[in-house]
């Protein structure tokens, strides 16, 4: 069998854009090289979730003509023509005048999309170009030999819940490649492994969690088409960074969600419930009348920005997209960076293939390409945007407007340090959707006769956590993977949405997450 030239981990926009660009250029130059994408998801798009507004210009470059034709992906997008920003108090909403809203936060002319649909489409484009895509394979670790990334090792399969080998045991296969591109998303398992080996960034990466629902409205809904609403304030207190969004989607649907910075201080904050609270606000509730929730999900977003971006290349490997931290909080967007970043990576890889040299020396071109594409410039402009909000909204807001003039990096701590002892939100449970229903709508499922893919290395610490942080994981996990029983944490790994919040937010950094057997987890289709 042909050796793999380029192995891409993750079939999201970043990975698929890398694959598409690379194959396009290889085909144009009549060169043959194998480009292989693997992902743990069972089907394209299932593990992709995004707020969903993006700058479409990058697709004109990646797939020229993508807007044409009846079956085009363009038909599944909604152009934003109406963009509003509100500040919410519990019973009131204040529209922030267009003139005051910073230009970069403007979304008119952008497109609301389902990133899972986008991944399905990009996957088809890639396959038609000759990219090999294999889904349902979980990568466990990087193969590193002589200081070079040589590929990946897949998970062992066929272990029972006690870790004993079943009759169908399959030793984790090794997959060698000349260059490995890590596009495994926010807090990706492999990109985390790589980051630990490389020099640290100025700031640690910080994250937020987005919880999202897709709601089908009756025809002639009050929300209307081609509209985007962003909100600040309610239900968040000033010390919780984040906001809500509502976007028009095709077929009388709207996407609604809440994005919360994981550095929140409250031990008992449950973001799935926060979204339900958000939905009760008069401004929002009005639009949701007679709506039916058809899908739900959650994912984390790396939002540290410029100073949290790790080194992006090493011998035999590159980082692209969310796993590289390509998110601009000033614009609250990242998909177009994932795509452009993928294109930049592909161009560097092509040079490496031509030179048959996969060392840092050649792959460093990736960073040059990123600079030329403007990504790093935009990210640099937003370099201190997120950090200021650690002081709360009243200081963070004005600070964020002058941040680009601050000559030094504002430092920031890891999110788990943000949880403060004894701080409670004490939110009343909402009557509407609970987490069991939320999980059901995410479609997540796992074979239960396998070792738990989440683990708590030191259960003793949970006692302390209970005392200080209200058993934080039992609140922050949107899938309710963690439940507290007699002072102990009971696990329901089968509920897991693969969002990575637990590893990031456990106040004791006491949760580990390994990929479960391939082909499991959530089934996002329209998120």
């Amino acid at each position, binding site marked *: *069998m042909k050796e793999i030239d380029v192995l891409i981990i993750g079939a999201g926009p970043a990975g698929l854009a890398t694959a598409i660009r690379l194959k396009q250029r290889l085909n144009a130059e009549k060169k043959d090289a194998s480009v292989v994408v*693997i992902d743990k998801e069972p089907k394209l798009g299932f593990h992709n979730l995004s707020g969903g507004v993006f700058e479409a210009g990058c697709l004109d470059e990646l797939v020229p003509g993508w807007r044409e034709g009846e079956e085009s992906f363009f038909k599944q997008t909604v152009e934003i023509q109406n963009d509003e920003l509100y500040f919410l108090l519990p019973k009131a909403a204040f529209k922030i005048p267009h003139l005051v809203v910073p230009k970069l936060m403007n979304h008119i002319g952008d497109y609301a999309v389902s990133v899972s649909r986008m991944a399905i489409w990009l996957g088809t484009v890639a396959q038609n170009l000759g990219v090999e895509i294999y889904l349902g394979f979980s990568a466990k670790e990087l193969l590193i030999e002589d200081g070079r990334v040589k590929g990946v090792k897949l998970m062992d399969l*066929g272990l029972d819940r006690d870790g004993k080998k*079943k009759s169908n045991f399959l030793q984790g*296969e090794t997959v060698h490649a000349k260059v490995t591109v890590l596009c495994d998303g926010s807090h990706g398992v492999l990109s985390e492994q790589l980051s630990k080996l490389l020099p640290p960034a100025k700031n640690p990466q910080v994250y937020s969690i987005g919880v999202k629902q897709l709601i*089908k409205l009756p025809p002639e809904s009050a929300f209307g088409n081609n509209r985007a609403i962003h909100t600040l304030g309610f239900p968040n207190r000033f010390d919780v960074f984040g906001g809500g969004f509502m976007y028009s989607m095709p077929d009388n649907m709207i996407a609604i969600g809440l994005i919360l910075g994981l550095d929140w201080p409250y031990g008992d904050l449950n973001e799935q419930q926060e979204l339900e609270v958000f939905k009760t606000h008069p401004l929002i509730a009005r639009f949701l009348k007679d709506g039916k929730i058809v899908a739900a999900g959650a994912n984390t977003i790396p939002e540290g920005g410029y100073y949290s971006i790790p080194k992006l290349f090493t011998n035999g490997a590159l980082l692209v997209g969310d796993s590289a931290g390509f998110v601009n909080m000033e614009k609250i967007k990242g998909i177009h960076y994932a795509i452009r970043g993928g294109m930049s990576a592909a161009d560097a890889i092509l040079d490496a293939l031509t030179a048959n040299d996969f060392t840092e020396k050649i792959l460093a071109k990736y960073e040059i390409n990123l600079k030329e594409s403007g990504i790093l410039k935009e990210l640099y402009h937003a370099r201190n945007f997120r950090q200021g909000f650690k002081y709360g909204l009243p200081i963070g807001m004005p600070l964020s407007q002058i941040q680009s003039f601050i000559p030094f990096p504002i430092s920031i701590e890891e999110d788990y340090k943000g949880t403060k002892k004894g701080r409670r939100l004490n939110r009343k449970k909402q009557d509407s959707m609970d987490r069991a229903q939320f999980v059901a709508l995410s*479609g997540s499922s796992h074979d239960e006769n396998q070792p738990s893919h989440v683990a708590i290395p030191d259960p003793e610490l949970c006692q302390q956590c209970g005392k200080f942080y209200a058993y934080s994981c039992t609140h922050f996990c949107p899938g309710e993977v963690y439940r507290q*029983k007699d002072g102990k944490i009971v*696990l329901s790994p089968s509920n897991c949405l693969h969002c990575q919040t637990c590893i990031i937010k456990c106040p004791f950094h006491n949760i580990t997450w390994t990929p479960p057997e391939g082909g499991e987890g959530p*089934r996002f289709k329209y998120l």
Partner: protein
Amino acid sequence: MNFIVLIKQVPDVSNIPEEAWDREKGTLRRNMLDNVLNPLDFHAITFACQLREKFGDESGKVICLTMGPPMAKEVLLDGIARGADEAILLTDRAFSGADTIATAYSLAQCIRKVEREIFNGNREYIIITGMQSVDGDTAQVPPQVAEVLGMEQIAYAQSFDFDKRLVVKRIGPHGMESIVPKRYPVLITTTACTEPLYRSFHGMRGAREKTFHQWSAADIQVDQDKIGLKGSRTQVYRIFSPSEERKKECCFPKSVDELIDLIEQKYKQGPVAVQGKVGQVYAIGDKKPSYHGELWVYIEQWKGHVAPVSYELLAKARELAVPLKEKVGAVLVGHQISGIAKEMIARGADKVYVVDDPQLEYFLPMPYKKAVSSLVIQHKPQIMLFGATPLGRELAPRVASSSNAGLTADCTKLEIEDFIKGKVEMIAILKQTRPALGGNIMATIMTKDCDTQMATVRPGVLKANEPDPARTGEIIPFNIQITADDIRTEVIARESLVEKASLAHADIIISGGRGLGTKSSYDKFIRPLAAAFGEMFPGKVEIGASRMAVEDGFVPHEHQVGQTGTTVQPKLYIAFGISGAVQHISGMQQAEIIVVINKDPDARMFNYADLGMVSDFQTVIPQMIEAVKRRKKS
């Protein structure tokens, strides 16, 4: 030895996304479901690969074969990644609309080509497949493939031994059987008996380089009249929501005593919704019926004991025969069975056809098929009913295939009605209603272009008549020649089934969820209640649990009810402290009587309940035990 594994791409009914439901019509949009490999086929592939290894024959191949649209190639690549050597996709628009008869014929023609061209005429091969697919769930195609190809089948295989010769262990109608094939080729259907092999990444990558054939109708030399819709003898004419059949309205009794009374009443009464419409008897008038002949029932017996479903079918045939003005026939096959023939008359038969032969003492598909088919071909009944028991599901498809009959599997409702649409006018036909897509939709099916309308009927959904000794009828002996050629397998051992804790076959399940709080309250409350029910009601009682209760360690995983545990279909399901996560509900909603006790009045479980009580289990259970015990005494 070579192996052909028949596989199928099916919609994933275990994971139905919300958007796939057409809530207004209550049906599923099939195109919104994900496509997956039929769950049992994982086992078939694994079984074949394990056999290939045991036979240790270097040149032995495992070939995956599927018939379907071009996208079904996906499951073939999957099969190769799990260990198959080659794959064949049989695809052609001409195949579309095929029922099991037309499908089996097409597959059989394809297998003949494989035998000729890939195996070079070598007939040492085994066809392996899952017994049924989750979408159609008929279990008809495998026996019909075997029938068309004239080979014997070994159904419900659980494992095999290989010591110079192959011994297949299978679940027979009356216990485990160890079977040695005396002649090849043979067809084996598997149960969920293996730990299915995983796809290997390198296998998956290499799959595209392995031999992959795509054949059309022309490639396999088919008779155009026998394939697709044209070659089919059944046709779906209506799809509707199961809720139309079964309107659920939860009744909340005021006291525990009343609750137990209602449970007892409903339990004894059996299912209600599936009975025909009362008071509306079909009248044929002076119209000319489309079908002619008697109405037959296959009588399933074991050492002179008749399966209850056979009496249920006799009662149904009797009822249907009235407007048709035809006689009811019972078909009795076995050895030393003349003693029970009279009983058939008392139960509603006008004629009893008896095939008594020492070689028919035990059920074997080919000889039994020969007996029944010969009768059917000779007498051409217009209707023939079988119980949808393991035996009926093995026998009926072969009988239908070898006579001129169309067959519908697993019916829950049978009615006589006219079908008039455009030019098609069918008078007094048998309307056959059955669940499909994992019970998520109901389909009504009619039989066309043949002599006999055959159906297998789910046991327990119809009511038997009390025997009437005064009835008269005719007993007609029928002789056939069972030759050595008919006996192609040898049963070398039989053992009775060991009764294991098995939720899947329980009549009553008492289930507890996380609401019970602790393992000790599960043990203290659920187990004694189960014991008490066991004493009061006939039938097997098991204890069950929700996934959360299992995770909390109340009971081991084999008691878990739900999508990721066991899917159950008991007569009575009682849930305590279970809120009703979707994955739990999808595993138990097919239960006949659902009783929910929960202190949270908003618990989703109540939406699925027939009987409910908003109360705490600690109060209710002791009262229930007491009430049950009182009734037992009286």
